[in-house]
């Protein structure tokens, strides 16, 4: 893989068409030429994959001291004194010749081809081609198109055999489920019979296909490229923050294309991120505010904003309030809600995480690593979820780095992950014993503590208390003081929400309530005294009747909080539930007041990824019905409660963040939301040009919060009769991004409990049988699936797969979840 970022490379003297160009040592000629404005046509070359030299389209005349000769510029690294002629007769003749040959068997069905208008074969034929075909023979024929997966279709007649999709599948995704078959003139790309190209990354092959051979079901025959409007944005399906071009036609989102952000995604997207645009334009989106029917608690009735906002304001006025959620929000939305909660509602009860994350103070205070740091570290210690399932493009980057031996992955996990086969070491951890297991691994191999170490930290098991992770981080901090950390928290903008103070213990800018109080009292006028509750705390308080009104800010706690029983008691214990959301989720349907929020690509703003990198969110379409941006809802509620957030536009908020939020006061230009908003030319940036004056010039900028790791707790002896539950997430689950996107919804696997086949045999069960699973909370029935990669004594279940969720079994107060299996 060619690293676009050629750091500290020396310059090589190369002349192209008589002009000296700036070329770097080790750079491929085709890339150096392009960087210098000379585009050499190509089909197989792709800057993020190893060259194969198949299409021969990039032949140019090159003289490296032995006379001019045609050479493929995708295979040739620049060298001193190289003379290149991309315009000579011979070059042109060769390039025309290749195009003529490529078209010999191409069907030329451009009028009915989705690629028409953005097709490299079409474009390059126009620019470099011969202008006529001399082929009179019958062309190759194949059945067209054939589905090679549920999402991707293949038309072999159009294929020019550039090896891009197959190289991507093998070298980048690690899913060699498509391959060249046959030989010579009969070569074709195919899957094995009945073994489809089910890769989490299959959509990338459609994007990089230089012809219309690969098409994606969600976009087939939907639009012509010239009808598309586009805005660059950032994917928020998870928190990796991949660069994405959002495309729409007639106010409807039609496609996302990956954008190559060198530090982040290298142009790749996962299929969930690529295809969940369908959920944005779903007919199921909330279009209008709703109030509970006083006569039928099961029904929500549409209303207009004024009534709904008034009702919500009443429920918030002088009441004990808890606000759960906010990771779906933009940074600007999150700031507005943080300010609203603190200054108008007067509470610190606000938490963007749903008891399935990590201590926000820990996350905010750990020394940060970037994705690039991880991919170039001596060691990556992985104590977190299955990245392939939760942060797929981070998985892709780490897999690539491990395969190229640029880093070494050491994994400590309760069950195998997508990275296990690429890890140098994969250690099995007992649920609840992570800190002990980490300590043991470091004892066994002290070399792991030396060199540059990046720790990827997250929740590998939602059926065990997060304290095991916090204790493990404590161990790592003591043993590897120089380690840096990349948090593996998955929700779209959870990092931005934490930065903006959607967490009970932190004010915006990752400062603690105590340290930041004076600063924010100056900036905002007031900061509540009482310490806030986190989501678990709010739910406990609500179930005990100590919270009157629960605000669900894009949160679906019934399925996401891994303690279904607690959530049910909490929802029953409050008098009013206010939901601000895109969809009528399971939890939203329980609300008294529902406020529809605008969604992805319907508002401008910024988002923050796991690295803390702030990037722009583009606006391209309008929200459905009367749905509004979350920050506006906060501002409206504030107004009705007699307050004033002083925020009238996204630009206003960005400007205030830049002057008020300590961590964002002197950002590098790339981290500045303001700069991003201006550059991206989206959103309603404030048009007043007033110089921004720091609001609180006389007070020292508060320091970021510190975090003290808990001591390692005693290991609880395992109940020898019980199995320990591991609860994890899958990429495709029952949540709205998947469920409301028809093209991927059916890819979510139904709930099942995975268990070693010897345990199954012991119980006399076979695959698919239902089993009764009993924990301290309840008993559920669920089908079993044998999986011999799982240790004996452990069972694995999905948190939110269609069917029954692991949350039913989990008690948030327990260190681990022990269960018994019984045949029914």
């Amino acid at each position, binding site marked *: 893989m060619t690293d676009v970022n050629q750091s500290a490379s020396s310059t090589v003297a190369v002349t192209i068409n008589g002009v000296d160009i700036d070329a770097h040592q080790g750079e491929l000629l085709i890339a150096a030429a392009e960087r210098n404005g000379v585009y050499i046509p190509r089909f197989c070359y792709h800057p993020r994959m190893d060259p194969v030299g*198949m*299409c021969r389209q990039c032949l140019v005349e090159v003289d490296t001291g032995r006379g001019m000769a045609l050479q493929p510029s995708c295979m040739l690294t620049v060298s001193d004194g190289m003379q290149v002629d991309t315009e000579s007769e011979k070059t042109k003749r060769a390039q025309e*010749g*290749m195009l003529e040959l490529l078209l010999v*068997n191409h069907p030329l069905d451009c009028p009915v081809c989705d690629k028409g208008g953005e097709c490299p074969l079409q474009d390059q034929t126009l620019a470099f081609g011969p202008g006529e075909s*001399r082929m009179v*023979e019958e062309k190759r024929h194949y059945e067209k198109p054939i589905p090679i997966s549920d999402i991707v279709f293949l038309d072999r007649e159009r294929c020019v055999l550039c090896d891009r999709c197959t190289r991507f599948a093998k070298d980048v995704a690690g899913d060699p489920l498509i391959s060249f078959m046959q*030989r*010579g003139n009969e070569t074709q790309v195919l899957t094995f019979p009945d073994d489809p190209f089910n890769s989490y990354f299959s959509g990338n092959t459609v994007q990089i296909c230089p012809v219309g051979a690969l098409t994606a079901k969600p976009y087939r025959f939907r639009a012509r490229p010239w009808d598309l409007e586009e805005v660059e944005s950032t994917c928020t399906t998870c928190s990796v923050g991949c660069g994405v071009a959002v495309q729409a036609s007639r106010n409807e989102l039609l496609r996302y294309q990956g954008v190559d952000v060198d530090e982040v995604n290298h142009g790749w997207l996962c299929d969930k991120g690529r295809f969940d645009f369908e959920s944005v334009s779903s007919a199921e989106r909330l279009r209008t505010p709703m109030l509970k029917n006083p006569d039928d608690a099961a029904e929500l009735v549409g209303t207009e904003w004024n009534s709904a906002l008034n009702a919500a304001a009443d429920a918030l006025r002088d009441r004990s309030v808890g606000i759960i959620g906010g990771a779906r929000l933009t940074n600007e939305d999150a700031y507005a809600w943080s300010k609203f909660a603190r200054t108008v509602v007067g509470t610190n009860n606000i938490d963007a995480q749903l008891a399935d994350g990590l201590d926000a103070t820990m996350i905010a205070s750990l020394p940060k690593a970037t994705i690039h740091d991880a991919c170039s570290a001596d060691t990556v210690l992985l104590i977190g979820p299955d990245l392939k399932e939760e942060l797929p493009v981070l998985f892709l980057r780490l897999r690539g780095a491990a395969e190229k031996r640029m880093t070494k992955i050491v994994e400590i996990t309760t069950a195998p992950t997508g990275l296990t086969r690429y890890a140098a070491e994969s250690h099995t951890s007992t649920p609840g014993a992570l800190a002990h297991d980490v300590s043991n691994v470091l004892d066994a191999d002290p070399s792991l503590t030396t060199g540059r170490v990046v720790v990827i930290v997250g929740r590998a098991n939602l059926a065990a208390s997060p304290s095991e992770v916090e204790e493990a981080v404590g161990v790592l901090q003591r043993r590897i003081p120089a380690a840096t950390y990349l948090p593996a928290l998955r929700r779209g903008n959870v990092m931005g929400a934490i930065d903006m103070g959607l967490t009970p213990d932190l004010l915006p800018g990752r400062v603690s309530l105590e340290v930041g109080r004076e600063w924010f009292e100056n900036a905002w006028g007031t900061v509540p005294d009482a310490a806030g509750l986190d989501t678990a705390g709010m739910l406990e308080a609500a179930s005990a009747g100590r919270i009157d009104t629960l605000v669900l800010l894009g949160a679906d706690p019934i399925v996401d909080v891994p303690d279904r029983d607690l959530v049910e008691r909490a929802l029953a214990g409050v008098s009013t539930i206010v939901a601000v959301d895109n969809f009528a989720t399971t939890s939203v349907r329980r609300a008294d007041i529902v406020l529809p929020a605008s969604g992805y690509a319907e508002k401008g703003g910024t988002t923050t990824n796991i690295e803390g990198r702030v990037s722009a969110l583009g606006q391209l379409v309008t929200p459905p019905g009367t749905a509004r941006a979350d920050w506006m809802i906060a501002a409206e509620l504030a107004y009705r409660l007699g307050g004033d957030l002083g925020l009238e536009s996204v630009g206003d908020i960005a400007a205030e963040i830049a002057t008020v939020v300590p961590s964002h006061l002197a950002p590098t230009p790339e981290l500045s939301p303001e700069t991003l908003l201006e550059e991206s030319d989206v959103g309603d940036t404030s048009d007043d040009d007033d110089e921004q004056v720091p609001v609180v010039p006389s007070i020292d900028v508060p320091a970021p919060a510190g975090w003290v790791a808990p001591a390692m707790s005693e290991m609880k002896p395992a109940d020898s009769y019980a199995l320990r539950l591991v609860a994890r997430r899958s990429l495709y689950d029952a949540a709205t991004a998947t469920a409301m996107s028809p093209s991927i919804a059916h890819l979510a696997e139904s709930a099942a409990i995975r268990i070693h086949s010897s345990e199954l045999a012991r119980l006399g069960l076979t695959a698919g049988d239902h089993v009764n699973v009993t924990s301290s909370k309840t008993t559920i029935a669920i089908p079993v699936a044998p999986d011999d990669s799982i240790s004996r004594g452990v069972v694995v279940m999905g948190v939110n797969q269609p069917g029954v969720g692991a949350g039913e079994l989990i008690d948030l107060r327990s260190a681990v979840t022990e269960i018994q299996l019984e045949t029914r």
Partner: protein
Amino acid sequence: MTLRGTPIARAPGFIANDTPRIVTSRFEYDDSYSLDRYLATGGYEGIRAALALGPEATHGEVRDATLLGRGGAGFPAGVKWGFCPPGVWPRYLVVNGDESEPGTYKDRLLMELDPHQLIEGCLIACYAVGLSQCFLYVRGEMAVAQERVAAALNEAYAAGYVGKNILGSNFSVDIVLHWGAGAYVVGEETALIESLEGNRGMPRLKPPYFPAAVGLYGMPTIVNNVETLANLPWIMNNGAAAFTQIGTESSPGTRMVAVSGHVKRPGVYEIVNGTTTFRDLIYGDDMCGGIRDDNDLKAFVPGGGSAPWFTEDQLDIPFEGRVAGSAGSMLGSGAVMVMDSTTDIPSAALTLTRFYAHESCGKCVPCREGGSWLEKILTRIVEGEGTNRDLELLMEVGQTICPGDFPHASSERLGLEAVPFPYQMTTICFVGPSAFTPVHSAMTLFRDEFEARITKRDLIPVAVIGGES
């Protein structure tokens, strides 16, 4: 070691003559492939000599012998061995026994009739260069060669000639018999390595030009042809000086050449390198004895199906790579295919073009698409369906595969000046250009035969409507 079933007939084709016998010395014995026969005729003395010399001196001996590779490219083996980057280990030996160039028939004989000689050659190479494992890649369709090599390896292992502590020394190497499955292109050394790694046999990008730098599993790898390695025991037993006494300075030793087609005695001959001429070979009484039925010679392919054709004007060219190269062709894999005056040239050209089009791996566009397009045009012409324009089209499609001047044989008679071999090409390997070689040779030398096949005129474009005519 006995073979199951009835004994297999000796491979025919070899014809002995007065040439010194370096690699075919045991071919007339019924049991030439057995260990007993090998040992009785000086077998495994070469590796003993090498062990006594030490690896460096053994390498030096082979370098001094100027043993040219017999696979086609003719690169000196001792020099190739020296391309292994120092300090990079392990290194491997891959034996190219994928003989499949049209007209070529020699490596199969060496494997079937004297497998121990080949095994000993492998040992000498491994010992000299420090190669820790040897893979002996035999063409898939050669079932008998596989049997003979397997049986010989089993004997050699049992007798202590292969494996751990060979001849009681600290030299240890495994020789693994590997076999292909039918793909001509795998004879290209980087494709051979791909195939050995369990992949589609598609040639790798160059540079690196030699697998000696980056080869099997990315490690330094020597790829040597069967005949090349079969020379090593003799060289170690007799010394480089004795080897260079035979033949010429730049092309010493002997080489095996298969002559097929329209000659009186087609056969495989061991000939003296550098001095033997094509005339000796085709007309010599101890060799092919002339053209069948005493017909005239029309043309011959001097070095395997990829080589540009010669005519009687080149009969006196000796088996010397540089001479053949500057005359516009190559000696290639020692395969001479002779066409007499009765030969239908367009059909002969089509047969070869079809071969290379069919054997294209499909990687490079000019070969994959161009080769089969050439075949289609040529078929059309041969079947009498061609048009005037097709003759030019043939040459133009060929130019996309091989731009610039294409080599052809010099001939005062025909007014041709030779362009030295090799040609420029737009593909990674020689399969693409090889689809054009026969077309180019045939069209250059016998264009009239093609023109005679053209029965159809191009459709004349309808003049501009309303225009003057």
